[in-house]
């Protein structure tokens, strides 16, 4: 028997969340130390304390910009999810359609976002619509491909069994393809969720009157690096929250996987 000085402490350390938090805390401390020790000026690299202070000082304005970004992100992600699943379903239903659509899907991913986003702003204006479309553009691919490949991976023996029950195509999707693919769709949605906030920021960065991207360009132009970092921190928190929200949705939507872990 090994004896531990503090078994409770060891167990806490073995928890992933504890390790995550500790690792992040170490990073912040290191960052603060570097800024303090070397006396780096705030416009070059603001300290964590200065970053948090900048957020607190500008809280009202930041909240207004952040809420615009959140709305664009959720709308774009929602469109990508709805459209992505619909397109995947159509591609799965029709081989012809799949062959016609797939190359566009893959090649669209090769289009540099930073080059096409300004054009989207020119085509659809400087308002929220163009930002929503940029978000939808970046999120569409992971959702569609994960969903379609999920449909394809389903064991055809199940579809045949449903056929002997007299199932129509809509029954096959409801009882088989969609639930079987749900974990894959959720994995795609997780990737999309992390892309989505960045998509909105890129759209706002290139032009507009509201949003965290706009706030960032203004902070940068006035050499308020502390505000820029404050906005970056908020973007990170938004991405993380969205990722966790998809995770939570997955937990609720796939009870059969939940119990597997417990068993």
């Amino acid at each position, binding site marked *: 028997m090994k004896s531990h000085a503090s078994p409770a402490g060891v167990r806490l350390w073995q928890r992933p969340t504890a390790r995550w938090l500790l690792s992040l805390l170490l990073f912040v401390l290191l960052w603060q130390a570097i800024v303090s020790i070397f006396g780096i000026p705030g416009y070059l690299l603001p300290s964590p304390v200065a970053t948090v202070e900048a957020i607190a000082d500008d809280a009202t304005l930041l909240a207004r910009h952040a809420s615009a970004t959140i709305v664009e992100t959720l709308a774009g992600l929602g469109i990508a999810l709805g459209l992505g699943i619909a397109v995947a379903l159509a591609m799965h239903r029709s081989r012809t359609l799949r062959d016609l659509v797939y190359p566009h899907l893959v090649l669209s991913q090769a289009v540099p976002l930073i080059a096409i986003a300004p054009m989207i702003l020119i085509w659809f204006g400087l308002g929220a619509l163009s930002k929503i479309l940029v978000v939808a553009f970046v999120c569409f691919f992971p959702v569609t491909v994960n969903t379609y490949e999920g449909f394809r991976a389903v*064991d055809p*023996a*199940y579809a*045949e*069994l*449903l*056929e*002997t*029950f*007299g*199932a129509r195509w809509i*029954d096959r999707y409801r*009882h*088989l393809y969609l*639930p*079987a693919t*749900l974990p894959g769709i959720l994995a795609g949605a997780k990737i999309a969720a992390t892309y989505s906030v960045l998509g909105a920021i890129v759209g706002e960065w290139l032009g507009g009157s509201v949003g965290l991207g706009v706030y960032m360009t203004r902070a940068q132009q006035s050499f308020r690096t502390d505000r820029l970092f404050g906005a970056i921190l908020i973007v990170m928190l938004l991405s993380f929250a969205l990722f966790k929200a998809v995770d939570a949705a997955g937990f609720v939507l*796939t*009870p*059969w996987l939940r*119990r*597997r872990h417990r*068993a």
Partner: protein
Amino acid sequence: MTAVLTARNVTKRYGDLDVLCGVSLRLEERETVALLGPSGCGKTTLLRILLGLEPADGGEIVGRLDRAGYLPQGGLLFPWKTVLENAELPLQIRGVERAERRAAVAEQLPAFGLTGFEASYPHELSGGMQQRVALLRALLTGCPILVLDEPFGALDVLTRHRMQDWLAELLGRLERTMLFVTHDLEEAVALAERVVLLTDRPAGVLGERTIRLEPSERTDRFGNAFVAARDGLLSLIHQGGL
């Protein structure tokens, strides 16, 4: 006796591979027939053709089984559905009201030893219980013919014997027609009234045996009647050079 299914000279090949070379089969109303043959001989292909899931290359089939209570190999329960949801699926697809189909499942649960497991997922059940759920689902299709593909193949010997005895007893009450595939001689003797022996691939019919046993003799695997019936099948297989 009325034949519910007559297949004559059914042939099937996948590319260069001959799978079925002229299989003939008759299924009478309310009888239990076993298709017995070595692993990989084409038994499942034959079932799939009879179920209308795959076309035959040649031959004639009268009275298709495409509305049968089918239990495919491995059971194929839906992992994301509970016991109740799996069992009621055929009724749900037929458009039966929720309350009505739940009542239909609830009525059968005790006989299938599944009471209290309605809300469990398949992976939470033992192999034997999973197969009972799959069988209940096949039964609830309401089709007069049951088609089972190696229903107990994945189970350990003791569980398999228990399941065979249970199914034999159930079949006695249900009065359904049943066609099942197996590679287990004892399973054929325990359940079937008639055994159709298939040759190795490409499958043809090697011969046919009627098993005349009382229900009590079918469960007594060491009894003289059971052993004699099993050895009869075995000698037929050896005469066929399998």
